[in-house]
């Protein structure tokens, strides 16, 4: 173990030159910042798309001049066409799910923090790491490119169900080259994620420093490790699925297209394929994907809470970690709950429903751990804690919605309504985002050597918390009324009375979006003008806080750190760093 760590500590010299330092860097810290920046840009792009969508839903005749510059075809006279709405919706989901939610908490923070948290000088494969980022970057460029090609972005949703996504332009506007670029963009993202997962696993297993046993790993490191395994299996299925879809479109194959389809009175020359096959393949990835998104959030929250509640989590590292392992494992046997009314065997619906309901148990365990750790704690209400508490509330709400969708009988009414949209925005969307914010406010001083402004941070939290509930709880409610999702307009009959509620959602969403500029301003201003950060501004105990803010290029200045304790040595004011040989205060 020591020999490997020593090798890792000197495996690269400080980089020279701007390109090597900040562009094509093999330093995991630079790569982590690159991923985080990419996600930030993607988040604002994804949000802007959602603002355009919500403006159109609330005021269908509204003119949006900026968008009509981008797409005169999609926005004739500045007014959105139905197909352009669906294109914006597709790219909103795609960009948010992949380039924000999957990227930031894992590839962003994980890349920066994991090697430091385990006491290594870098990831196990730094060049592969660099390749992962740049492949992700190209994927993002391709996704954005769909907006400027003549055919425009695809409109089949981030789920891209065939035959709509597979037959090509015959299926209508929005099914031209944009869908091909989409498939390639996601395929590249898969490749990058697979490479990244490899790095995370090997680094965690092989590069832990002296004394860093698995039982002393910070829970965030456990989360990234478990997540990497889930990613390996899940993205390995999505990659060929995207390629098969592109083959059906360009290569004349019919993996997903059956015979006898007629578009514009013309019979399609395909035969033998199954649309349900795509759904199975996609959701075999898609369900673990939502856990790939949320597991790092579990890790970040579990990591941050002890610092700000001044005590370890109930049950120590074991209970939460085994809950995460259970969630990650069970996530592979529940995918059919996306397909209850899809034409899949109704018997299989029951088979998928049972584990879907059972996966509640480890999630409830995790929530109970976080909530009951607050019992008799000493809370310090800085922004990272606020966002962590907000996360818990949002995750409870989102998880509860799952009860309705996990049962085929109730899902048969709620499927494809805004109830589902509210549910997944709470769980994989905004809970993960709140955890990402918590991580951002927590780790910003370490990453950039400066403090974010607390007042702006708190304002950002309060407004966002109220905003999220206003937008997405209301969607659960309209879902009970049967409001159908993915509709670009509300026409007769039963959707029309829901228009005032939708206007409320749109206004709340635009305000929620505006609030994020407080965060953006804070981040950019503080990056350059914030007060300098000490090594350990929060008084935390894990290894990243035992080195500089930001850390030196090889993380620990060439010395090898030795670990003596677990990550949660907190007892009120007292705390013992993992690297300190002092006696334990928390008995862990």
């Amino acid at each position, binding site marked *: 173990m020591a020999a490997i760590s020593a090798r890792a500590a000197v495996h690269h010299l400080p980089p020279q030159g701007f390109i090597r330092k900040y562009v094509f860097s093999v330093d995991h810290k630079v790569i982590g910042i690159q991923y985080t920046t990419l996600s930030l840009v993607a988040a604002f792009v994804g949000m802007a798309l959602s603002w355009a969508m919500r403006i159109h839903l609330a005021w269908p005749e509204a003119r949006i001049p900026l968008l009509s510059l981008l797409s005169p*075809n999609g926005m*004739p*006279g500045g007014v959105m*066409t*139905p*197909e352009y709405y669906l294109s914006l919706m597709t790219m909103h989901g795609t960009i948010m799910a992949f380039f924000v939610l999957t990227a930031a908490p894992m590839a962003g923070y994980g890349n920066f923090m994991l090697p430091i948290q385990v006491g290594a000088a870098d990831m196990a494969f730094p060049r592969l790491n660099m390749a992962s980022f740049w492949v992700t970057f190209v994927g993002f460029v391709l996704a954005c490119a769909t907006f400027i090609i003549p055919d425009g972005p695809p409109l089949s949703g981030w789920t891209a169900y065939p035959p709509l996504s597979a037959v090509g332009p015959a299926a209508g*506007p929005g099914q031209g080259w944009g869908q091909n670029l989409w498939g390639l963009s996601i395929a590249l993202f898969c490749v990058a994620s697979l490479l990244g997962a490899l790095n995370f696993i090997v680094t965690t297993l092989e590069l832990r420093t002296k004394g860093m046993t698995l039982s002393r790993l910070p829970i965030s490191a456990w989360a990234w490790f478990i997540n990497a395994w889930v990613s390996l299996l899940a993205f390995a299925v999505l990659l060929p699925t995207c390629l098969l879809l592109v083959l059906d479109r360009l290569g004349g194959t019919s993996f997903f297209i059956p015979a006898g389809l007629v578009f*514009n009175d013309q019979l399609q020359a395909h035969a033998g394929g199954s649309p349900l096959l795509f759904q199975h393949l996609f959701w075999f990835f898609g369900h673990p994907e939502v856990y790939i998104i949320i597991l790092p959030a579990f890790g970040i929250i579990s990591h941050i809470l002890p610092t700000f509640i001044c005590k370890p989590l109930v049950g120590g590292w074991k209970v939460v970690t085994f809950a995460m392992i259970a969630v990650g494992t069970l996530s592979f046997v529940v995918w059919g709950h996306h397909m209850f009314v899809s034409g899949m065997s109704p018997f299989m619906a029951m088979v998928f429903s049972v584990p879907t309901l059972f996966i509640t148990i480890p999630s409830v365990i995790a929530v109970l751990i976080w909530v009951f750790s607050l019992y008799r704690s000493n809370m310090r209400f800085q922004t990272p804690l606020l966002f962590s508490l907000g996360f818990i509330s949002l995750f409870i709400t989102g998880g509860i919605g799952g009860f309705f969708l996990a049962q085929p009988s109730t899902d048969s009414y709620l499927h494809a309504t805004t109830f589902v949209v509210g549910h997944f925005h709470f769980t994989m969307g905004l809970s993960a985002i709140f955890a990402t914010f918590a991580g951002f406010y927590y780790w910003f001083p370490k990453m950039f050597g400066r403090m974010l402004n607390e007042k702006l941070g708190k304002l950002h939290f309060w407004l966002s918390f109220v905003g999220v509930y206003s937008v997405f709880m209301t969607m659960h409610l309209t879902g009970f009324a049967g409001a159908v999702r993915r509709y670009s307009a509300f026409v*007769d*009959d039963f959707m029309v009375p829901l228009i005032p509620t939708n206007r409320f959602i749109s206004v709340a969403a635009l305000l929620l979006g505006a609030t994020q500029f407080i965060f953006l301003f804070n981040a950019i201003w503080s990056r350059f003008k914030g007060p300098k950060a000490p090594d350990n501004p929060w008084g935390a105990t894990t290894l990243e806080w035992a080195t500089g803010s930001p850390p030196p290029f090889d993380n620990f200045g060439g010395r090898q750190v030795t670990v003596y304790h677990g990550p949660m040595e907190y007892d009120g004011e007292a705390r013992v760093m993992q690297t300190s040989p002092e006696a334990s205060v928390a008995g862990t």
Partner: protein
Amino acid sequence: MARRIRALAVPMGLVLLICLSFGIPKPAGRVAAAASGQITGTVKLDGVAPKAKVIDMSKEPSCAKVHASTPATMENVVVGPAGGLANVVIYLSEGYTGSDAVATQPARLEQKGCQYVPHVIAVDVGQKLTITNDDQTSHNIHPMPKAGGNQEWNKSQLGGSAPIEVSYNAPEVAVPVKCNVHPWMHAYIAVVKGPYAVTDDSGAFKLDYVPPGTYTLTAWQETYGTQTAKVAVALGKPATVDFTFKAK
């Protein structure tokens, strides 16, 4: 006496020039009215027309309302009370060497009550076609040409929004048009060169501005296909051609 005539020559010449100038071709290339011929005729259907099926527009309540008292019917065979066949495109398929574009007004295709009005429209190559949507609902217009040089496109047009303007580069009889949102909506755009006419339910047609010469006159109807006739056009003598399609 001769001197008086010669003195009048200039002013008379001027007057003659002025009179003749009225006949000088206009910049748009229209054949001088005085120098053009005419083809008239009627198109009839021999036999019983197939039943014009009612179109149920209930899925689009705003359009169903428009047809509440008189239901809309299919227009693939429209026959008048005297047996005249409507929506037949008449044009010169062979022998025409004049300028391609004879009509100068833009043609207009309207979407009204979830139907295309007219059901069959003819335009010249390069003639502007204006498409409007007078309905509350959005339509998407999808012409599906086959001739090289004519571009296929598929565009949404929101109710009451700005007109879409297109023109076609190659003759094609005829480009089918459909609306994907409302599957019963169907129209044809016949792209021709030179003079054209589309019959109404009297079956009557009149082609103006036909330069003198011999031509093949073609009548096209979407269900019954084409019929041709040779016609010779002379100045001052309108040619008459009648067509009769046989009901299946």
